[in-house]
């Protein structure tokens, strides 16, 4: 199903921002909030994994119902999960379209990767402390 | 540091020492002027060239919140003046609002060694001091804004001048400020509601004090504190046709001088000398202003000359900038500062084809030519409001040459002469007048001769400018192009006994001082423990009292002038 993905800050994201290798950060940054009706249509429940695809990439996240979101709009806090799907084009402004990413979402049995594994996917070498 | 310099064959004009043009030697040791240079001193042959104390700008906007915002919002201005890294010189950008190093190098190569920042909001003082540190070739001073200070206005309302003095003393010491600045007193508070005050007797909303009361109280407070400088005032109604009446009334508030210096310094008076009722019938009232000035030795002014071309206006006078924006419709920034003051910025272009601009241009020159005593009318452009300071040499040339003024007359709006007396003025200023108007007068008005500024006799700070101008071989009236070129670029600029610039290039990294004042007050007048005063920080400021004062670390080479308050 197609959605518009938007991003922003959450208090949890801010709280865990200085420990990005931890499961708590991963859980918040890979949490995708959706309208409950959209979740029904997707046949997913809270905490289920979904594969989100956009801009030629995909990333696994876990769903969370959020009745405050209108249908068709999903929210992910800013961070490395959302940015897998962000296009680097800036329309000559320096600023990517972080707030308006067209994505498609489908249920998956995969689990969200830790941040270090996400970075490995794009050429990094995980550092485990 | 024991390095010495001997400047030989210098054509010296040193008004404060009574030297009016004498070929002589100047000896420097350990940063001071001395009788005799130490053995092994560097010898500079001035070859009869004009040698003056280092230039002092007593009103310029170069550092701090609004200046930096002028840069921030103006990439077009940044592109208009850029230089690469060269030797010890950093990259610079900017024409009317250059980067800090740009300001510093350009001032230095023009022979300026001391600059007073015209407006510092106490709450944002730390910013000004950070930029001072990055302006390394001039000793810096900060006028500190009190025009809309709530605690001051309450003291004025209660007719408690001693309390006003105590508030000033605490604040100047806390923010490492130099002098009291009032910018459109009362008007900046009114601007918190989008309003202004109409004249010096128009009460400020809520506080119910008038600009006249603020000004008079602050003059008294200033004298109680025995501050080196007087109250430094940007009058109400800047830029408003007919504002000369406000200015004259304000000048009448200045009490007779007790000592050697003025009791009131009016800045950029050109902007305050307009007749007429609208922009259509604006005219010069420089004669009225000069007449008042000439009868009041207790008043000193600076010109606030405008020069044609592009510049950026910036002032704490927020309401004025909005009015100006309504005329220009270019871009407008505003920044009100809680409990203290305001500010605004807009870019402008002064055109020879605009009658209003031509009248403004004439008024500044007229003030300087009509003021009988050069010590009472100092050269300024209110940098960058009237023009960037790099235009000073051109202004000097205009003041020294009637021929140059006549040539300019042909270029400007032909109607100008009907609105201004400029072209009837025959006076041409001489080298001495210029020396007074660009350094000695500033040193005296600011009260910094006591720390050795503005003169060249033994004991003075060794701030010296040697210009490629030979006064005995030049007729400034005719050779005005040479005058202009000469004042644009020193042969040598020496600051605190060290050659800092040569032939237009800065040659050392630089390390300046910041000059500030502290008035000692009796314990009962220490506002730091006054319940009413500190309550402002608990309830209305968004910064805690303890985080407000500027720490010593921001003044790596601070010079404190201490006074004993008469409280």
């Amino acid at each position, binding site marked *: 199903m197609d959605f518009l993905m938007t991003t922003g800050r959450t208090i949890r994201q801010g709280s865990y921002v200085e420990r990005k290798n931890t499961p708590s950060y991963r859980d918040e940054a890979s949490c995708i909030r959706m309208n409950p009706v959209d979740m029904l249509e997707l046949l997913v429940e809270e905490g289920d994994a979904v594969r989100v695809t956009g801009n030629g990439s995909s990333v696994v996240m876990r769903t969370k119902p959020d009745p405050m979101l209108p249908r068709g709009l999903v929210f992910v806090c800013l961070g490395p999960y959302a940015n897998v799907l962000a296009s680097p084009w800036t329309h000559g402004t320096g600023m990517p379209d972080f707030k308006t990413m067209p994505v498609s979402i489908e249920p998956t049995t995969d689990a969200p990767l830790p941040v270090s594994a996400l970075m490995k996917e794009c050429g990094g070498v995980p550092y485990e402390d | 540091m024991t390095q010495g310099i001997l400047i030989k064959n210098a054509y010296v004009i040193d008004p404060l020492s009574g030297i009016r043009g004498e070929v002589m030697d100047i000896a420097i040791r350990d940063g001071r002027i001395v009788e005799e240079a130490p053995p092994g001193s560097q010898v500079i042959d001035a070859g009869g060239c004009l040698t003056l104390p280092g230039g002092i700008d007593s009103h310029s906007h170069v550092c701090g919140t609004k200046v930096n915002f002028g840069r921030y919002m103006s990439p077009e201005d940044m592109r208009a003046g850029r230089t690469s890294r060269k030797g010890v010189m950093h*990259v610079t950008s900017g024409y009317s609002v250059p980067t800090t190093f740009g300001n510093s190098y350009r001032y230095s190569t023009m022979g300026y060694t001391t600059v007073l920042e015209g407006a510092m909001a106490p709450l944002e003082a730390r910013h000004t001091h950070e930029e001072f540190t990055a302006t390394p070739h001039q000793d810096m001073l900060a006028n500190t804004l009190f025009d809309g200070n709530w605690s001051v206005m309450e003291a004025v309302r209660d007719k408690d001048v001693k309390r006003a003095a105590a508030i000033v003393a605490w604040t100047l010491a806390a923010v490492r400020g130099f002098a009291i600045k009032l910018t459109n007193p009362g008007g900046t508070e009114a601007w918190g509601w989008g309003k202004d005050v109409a004249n010096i007797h128009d009460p400020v909303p809520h506080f119910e004090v008038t600009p006249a009361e603020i000004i008079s109280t602050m003059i008294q407070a200033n004298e109680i504190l025995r501050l080196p400088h007087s109250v430094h005032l940007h009058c109400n109604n800047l830029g408003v046709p007919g504002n000369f009446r406000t200015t004259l009334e304000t000048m009448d508030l200045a009490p007779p001088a007790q000592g050697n210096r003025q009791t009131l310094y009016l800045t950029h008076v050109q902007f305050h000398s307009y007749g007429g009722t609208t922009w259509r019938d604006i005219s010069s009232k420089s004669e009225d202003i000069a007449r008042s000035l000439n009868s009041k030795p207790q008043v000193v002014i600076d010109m606030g000359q405008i020069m044609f071309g592009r510049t950026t206006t910036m002032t704490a006078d927020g309401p004025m900038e909005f009015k100006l924006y309504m005329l220009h419709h270019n871009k407008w920034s505003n920044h009100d500062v809680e409990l203290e003051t305001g500010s605004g910025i807009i870019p402008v272009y002064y055109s020879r084809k605009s009658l209003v601009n031509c009248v403004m241009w004439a008024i500044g020159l007229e003030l300087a030519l009509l003021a009988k005593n050069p010590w009472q009318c100092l050269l300024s452009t209110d940098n960058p409001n009237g023009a960037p300071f790099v235009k000073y040499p051109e202004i000097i040339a205009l003041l020294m040459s009637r021929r140059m003024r006549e040539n300019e007359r042909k270029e400007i709006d032909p109607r100008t002469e009907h609105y201004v007396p400029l072209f009837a003025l025959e006076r041409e200023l001489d080298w001495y007048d210029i020396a007074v108007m660009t350094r000695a007068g500033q040193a005296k008005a600011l009260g910094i001769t006591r720390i050795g500024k503005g003169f060249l006799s033994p004991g003075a700070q060794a701030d010296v400018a040697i210009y490629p101008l030979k006064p005995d071989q030049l007729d400034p009236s005719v050779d005005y192009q040479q005058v202009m070129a000469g004042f644009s670029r020193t042969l040598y600029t020496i600051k605190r006994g060290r050659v800092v610039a040569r032939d237009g290039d800065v040659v050392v990294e630089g390390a300046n001082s910041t000059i500030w004042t502290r008035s000692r007050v009796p314990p009962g007048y220490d506002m730091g423990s006054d319940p009413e005063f500190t309550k402002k920080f608990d309830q209305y400021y968004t910064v805690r009292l303890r985080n407000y004062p500027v720490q010593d670390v921001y003044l790596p080479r601070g010079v404190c002038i201490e006074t004993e308050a008469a409280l």
Partner: protein
Amino acid sequence: MRIEDVVCPFCGCLCDDLVVSVEGTKVLSVENGCTLATEKFTGDHRLAHPIRRTGGSWEKTTYDVAIRETAEILLDAERPLLYGWSGTFVEAQTIGVHLAELLGAVIDNTSTVCHGPSIMAIQEVGHPGCTLGQVKNRADVIVYWGANPIEAHPRHMSRYTTFADGFFVKSAFRDRKVIVVDIRETDSSEIADEFVKVTPGGDYAVLSALRMIVRGKGELVPEKVSGVTREQLFRVANICLSARFGAIFFGLGLTMSRGKYKNIRNAIELTEELNRHTKFTISPMRGHWNVYGSNEVFTWITGYPYAVDFSRGIAFYNPGETTSVDILRRKECDACLVVASDPGAHFPRACAGHLASIPTVQIDPHVNATTHLSRIQIPVAVTGIDAEGTAYRMDGVPIRTRQLFSTDYPDDVAVLGRIYSLVKEAKG
């Protein structure tokens, strides 16, 4: 030990009224702070020592080696990018700019993916703003547009706006109207007197409609503009027009969405229009505690607030070209020094991928996403905890952060100063 009036180095609110209890080098408790402050002060996930990577494995190294190799990487680069800066203090940012100048590098700060578009708009039309105390003491109308302060700036409302009693606004919650404009409901919109829900990408049109009403051309406004009814637009415009002092705060909902800097320009022009009728100000909700400091320092040294390219000797600025995301997308830079930020987490993946393919060095107290992309990471003291220096609040008010205790970590000035010296020595 209880330390009062502590400055919080988290968000642009730069709250300076925290009370922090410390014992030795451990923070025991934080009073007055929000959750973010408490997490920041009590956090204990520091990188213990410098690390370096050769090929596919990480090893512990010394400061001497890490600093020397960093200097070598920068000296070896043809087009280095020095990115970040918002999470450190002004004195360190100053060294960064001079280092960029010396190297002929591009230097950019996190505004580039935050309020960069706001800066571009300000450069077109200016910025009528004020300090936050002006709002607290006077404002009777507050507008949050594309901002969610409860999540991003948790004390903004209680210190400066909705819940902050001021001199002329004795009972803030009662006397102040709050308008929230967003594309979705948030905790912030819940407490608004008026919530304006805009369809995504529709802010520009809504701003234009409001400007028309303020200008007296309301009859031209259609029944619905980007999901907002004409009736509500008139109601909002009238609330603004009848304010004694109105203050608009805007967030990334405007800077990142369609229209980008043009949205901000329109919002500023609305503010300017309103000033013809009453007093109105507008202010960006700056994110990092000292991102504004990086803009200030960049500006007084180079003339430009971000995205400064020294490669031609002079300072050159052209957002869209000299901005980090664009430089990384073009795979243009051949080395990157990241200071006090995390582009690995906050840049599009293609940009993170380029960082992994070039020698990237990170100076940061914590392991973050960028760590995994780097060759070297140098941990430093945390400003406001074990280091101190100047920060600029979102409204430009400069405050000195406080060092609560000292540790063995060098601060950013110490590390950057040594890199600068090595580069200067090599450059002669």
